């Protein structure tokens, strides 16, 4: 049996990763052979992530005076250097995995992302990030419009949403996105077992293959039915994946593991959507770098770290970019209940083997009256329009014109993340 080089490498990696991380040179060789086609994994932090405790301006005295309870002690932060404005920054102490990716030069931290007159509503804010349209956030999503540019007929698994409901960003006029929260339950169940169950599935497939001439509404339904049946086996294939690393046992990490399975098994989805919640931290965020917010950071960092390493071990990280965003950040000053209320500009993260890592943009200065602030210095004012990050992802990663997908030219001011 003739082994392809990639298979050989993958098997080799599988062997060596029993106890060790894959040697970087093996991964680099494998990447040269990896399947064509780039993909984007979108991670949504639901509820409004407190960016100032994610990426901490640990030398800003106002950070400590305005957050007497919840500030991360300077001695605990994971230092990542100083930004273009000379402000020293550190990651939350639970983001050790992300610091490691940062040190490899593959994590970009885009500071102060947002837009003018930032919505403080979860609902509207989420829709604005989803539609990429602060003026009218009720239409299709930016990723849905990207999917609409793909040649027809579009593959039923062109995108893969790991949450139950289609997020605004993936809403499209003409491209359906399957919601496959759990590959294990994306199956065809039956009141019977064995052969009879298989016969039901075969029968359903034949029934759905009816072109239904003269009944276009029925043909549309048959298309959805057939699309489901025809994707079952590919999703089941993704389910058979054995990762090269141990993923943490929580919903977020398991969703990333499902995504990894789909990528490694060559399912071919261009966009994956993953969400993790609990970020609406109005109360009891935790003190001294611990507590509820630290748990959120642990879940985020450990999950992303496992995924990134898994992709690298598989030689697929050069084709896989992850972005992390939230609908808004939070107030600078803590509130009366040890938490923070809804704020404005936050931090986006972009990571992957092709990402130009580092600190992009500049940190706010938190002293009242500073021009990097807004809303009577209550909130962080945006510096980078979030749509310019979308624009560079579309133009330089997914390879489509951002101007048509975003209905406007937002390239100006885009961070150089590729």
């Amino acid at each position, binding site marked *: 049996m003739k082994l392809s080089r990639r298979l050989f490498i993958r098997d080799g990696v599988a062997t060596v990763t029993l106890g060790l991380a894959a040697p970087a040179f093996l991964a680099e060789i494998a990447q040269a052979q990896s399947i064509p086609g780039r993909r984007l994994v979108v991670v949504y932090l639901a509820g409004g992530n407190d960016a100032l405790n994610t990426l901490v301006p640990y030398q800003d005295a106002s950070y400590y005076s305005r957050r007497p309870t919840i500030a991360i002690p300077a001695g605990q932060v994971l230092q990542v250097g100083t930004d273009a404005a000379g402000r020293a920054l550190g990651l939350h102490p639970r983001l050790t995995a992300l610091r490691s990716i940062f040190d490899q030069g593959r994590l970009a931290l885009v500071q102060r992302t947002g837009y003018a007159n930032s919505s403080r509503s979860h609902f509207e804010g989420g829709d604005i990030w989803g539609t990429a349209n602060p003026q009218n956030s*009720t239409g299709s999503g930016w990723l849905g419009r990207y999917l609409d540019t793909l040649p027809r007929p579009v593959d039923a698994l062109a995108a893969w949403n790991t949450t139950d409901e289609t997020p605004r960003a993936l809403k499209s006029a003409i491209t359906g996105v*399957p*919601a496959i929260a759990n590959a294990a339950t994306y199956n065809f169940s039956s009141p019977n077992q064995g052969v009879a169950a298989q016969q039901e599935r075969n029968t359903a497939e034949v029934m759905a293959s*009816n072109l239904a001439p003269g009944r276009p509404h*029925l043909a549309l*339904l048959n298309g*959805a*039915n057939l699309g489901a049946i025809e994707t079952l086996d590919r999703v089941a294939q993704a389910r058979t994946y054995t990762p090269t690393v141990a993923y943490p046992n929580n919903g977020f990490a398991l969703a990333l593991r499902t995504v990894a399975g789909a990528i490694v098994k060559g399912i071919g989805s261009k966009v994956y959507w993953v969400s993790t919640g609990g970020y609406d931290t109005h109360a009891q965020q935790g003190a001294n770098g611990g507590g509820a917010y630290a748990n959120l950071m642990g879940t985020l960092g450990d999950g992303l770290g496992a995924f990134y390493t898994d992709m690298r071990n598989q030689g697929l990280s050069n084709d896989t970019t992850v972005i992390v965003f939230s609908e808004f950040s939070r107030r600078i000053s803590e509130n009366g209940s040890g938490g923070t209320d809804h704020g404005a500009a936050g931090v986006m993260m972009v990571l992957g083997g092709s990402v130009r890592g580092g600190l992009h943009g500049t940190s706010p200065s938190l002293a009242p009256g500073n021009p990097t602030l807004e809303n009577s210095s209550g909130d962080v004012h945006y510096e980078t329009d979030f749509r310019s990050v979308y624009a560079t992802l579309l133009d330089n990663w997914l390879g489509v014109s951002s101007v048509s997908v975003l209905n406007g030219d937002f390239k100006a001011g885009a961070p150089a993340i590729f």
Partner: protein
Amino acid sequence: MSQLDPAVDHLLRRAGFGASAADVETYRDMSPAAAVAHLVDYAGRPDDVDERIGRPDHVQVSTNNLFAPDIDIDDARQRWMFRMVHSRRPLQEKMAMFWHNHFATAFSKLANDSGTKQAAKLLTAKPGSLRGPMGQIELFREYGMGSYRDLLFRFSQHAATVIWLDGQFNTKTKPQENFGREIMELFSVGVGYYTEPDVYAAARVFSGWNLRESEGYSDNDMNAYKEFVYNADQHETSEKTFSFPIYSDGSKTIPSRSESAGMQDGIDLITALAFHPETARRLARKFWNFFVSEIVPPDPAFVSATANVYLQSGTRIGPVVYSVLNSPWFNDPSAVYARYSWPAEFVVRSIKEVGWQNLSVDKARAPMSNMGQALYEPPNVAGWPLGANWFSTSTMLARSNFAATLASSQKGFLAVGLQEQATSPQALMTAMLDRITPAPFDALPQQALLNYLVAGGAWTGNESQVSTRAAGLARLLVASSEYQLV
């Protein structure tokens, strides 16, 4: 074919949730016109359905603790599903669902604001069950066939609505536009028939339409409550001018009023919007899609006729629905099976037709969410994306797998019930299509179904074969594309 007059079958799919075996007995001898009257004039029949929760011969509910549908949203979902399956007033539930979509209000935002128990109470509490106003859904049950002006007014002054559309922040110094915009965009005339200055004016009209908490309020005290309050000192008193007439004399300006009299501003605007001819036409188009067809666009003659009934009856919905269901458009052959079922319609109809013995409606709760319709959780204020938008690979798979769950739960009962009739594959098919009513099959799927019945070997009609094939057939019929149409 079902055992009912096809016109009555059609009517029950639209004005109800399909027909169970018991419903077949009720409607068997009714003419279509008599059935319309029976469905619409439900006020004379007792609303006793909730008392039957937990009784034998009904679909079951499941709960970990005490069944508490007034304060637990999952229990509330089960109660509503139970009502859809068993109410003797199916049109009342259908209209509640229509208004729940039209006045879409989501549990999660209310829970964010007031905790899960108060949020459930705000949406679902039965009148008189707990202190405080009745749940929003009960408004739709109680007043859903009355005057639209009245319904819009009650909806606008419901605490759930105030929280949902940020009315508590509507003060005279910072008029809040959310409600002022939506009442024109979604609840009345629609986009194109109001201007941005109208939105600003409406925000000022509703300034002071706020929220009040009962004394000693706490989220966890079930006898505590939030309710609407007109906060006179937060009302902005100057006159407000609109681009459309507010008063019957054609005047477009709501006069300046004192703070104490200022609530009348909102009442005047609501009345004007309810009686606006464009509201009449917009509702007529919505009723076309809900009752008549999603495949054929609204016939202008229907829109005009229905809008006239609405305006001439003083915006009363009962006469409008009566007129729609008796109209030639409703009874046109092109309207039959010309709607895409909502997940709730699909689930309830399938339970009614396949059976519910030893089945809990809770089995449908998670699947409905996967189908795209968690009750009390519309995706946004515009309601659910209807029609073909209900269908994607994953939502279709969710429907398909619910069909499997349902057929599996009824497997033994189906086998016993059909054993005698199942003398041949064709006979089993005929007997099954007496109760399960998909849109007609073309030759290809029909042959595929017959092939399935003998795929395990020649027909013997023995117990094991009937048990396997009847359940499998029920699953395939309910999961078919044809069955998704109503």
